[in-house]
């Protein structure tokens, strides 16, 4: 089974990367971007077939314990 975990910064948490990218887009002359916030995706292949509930539990554990820093980040799990 395939899944995607998307990790994004919580609102209000400073995103220096996003800020720098905004500036770079502007100086490249790409106008019209009001703001950029950067996050991560993890494309995960899960062994074995198709127990969705098990897969979700597994991904949740992976996200909570490793993929996301829940102090400053939120995450979302999608099974594909």
């Amino acid at each position, binding site marked *: 089974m395939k899944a995607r975990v998307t990790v994004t910064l919580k609102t209000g948490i400073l995103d*220096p*990367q996003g800020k*720098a990218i905004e500036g*770079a887009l502007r*100086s*490249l002359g790409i106008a019209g971007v009001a703001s950029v916030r*950067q996050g991560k995706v993890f494309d995960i292949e899960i062994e074995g077939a198709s127990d969705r509930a098990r897969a979700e539990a597994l991904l949740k554990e992976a996200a909570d314990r490793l993929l996301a820093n829940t102090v400053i980040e939120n995450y979302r799990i999608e099974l594909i």
Partner: protein
Amino acid sequence: MNSAVLVFPGINRERDMARTLKIVSGNETAMVWHAERALPAGTDLVVIPGGFSYGDYLRCGAIAARSPVMDAVRAHAARGGLVLGVCNGFQILCESGLLPGVLMRNQQLKFICRDVYLKVERSDTPFTRGYNAGQVIRVPVAHGEGNYVADGETIARLEGEGRVLFRYSSPDGIIDPDWNHNGAINAIAGIVNAGGNVLGMMPHPENHVESIMGCTDGRGLFAGLVQHFEKAA
């Protein structure tokens, strides 16, 4: 040798580089701000130093590679002018398309600062004429993303054309994964473009030119460049 050191916001080894160029060449170096559109007249060598241009945000070197001054660097390179990119400079050169490939995170995902050994593959280039082919030199690295990656075809071409100038090795010149701290393909530490006039390398020869650092193995690179331009003059 007239050299110009590029300064992008977040670059932080520009002073190390300028000092080294001064020590070895005897000349002051021009410091060129990223927003400039031209290099100082008479520039022989453009150096893109190490650091964290734009905080290494997005991808190392990505934002700097798209600065105005890089067009001038491209033009300089197209004329056959010499360009040296060290560490972040190497990353910027890859991102700007002047060199192929990309520098990914170190294999063990950590920033590493230590002395490493480099095998100098050739001595018949302006950048390595200060060394003998096969010589092993000790220089420091200080990077988190120095793991050179390119597709198979590119690697084959680089190898086939003898464009790998430096490789991580053991002190005896053996290429061995134990001595390849960042996991680069074929232990690649430095490569040149097809014209042989643009060098990108991860290690910092500029930090090993004075005996106070305990080693002067980096000096050969700069001394060779100076010789190259003296010859030319």
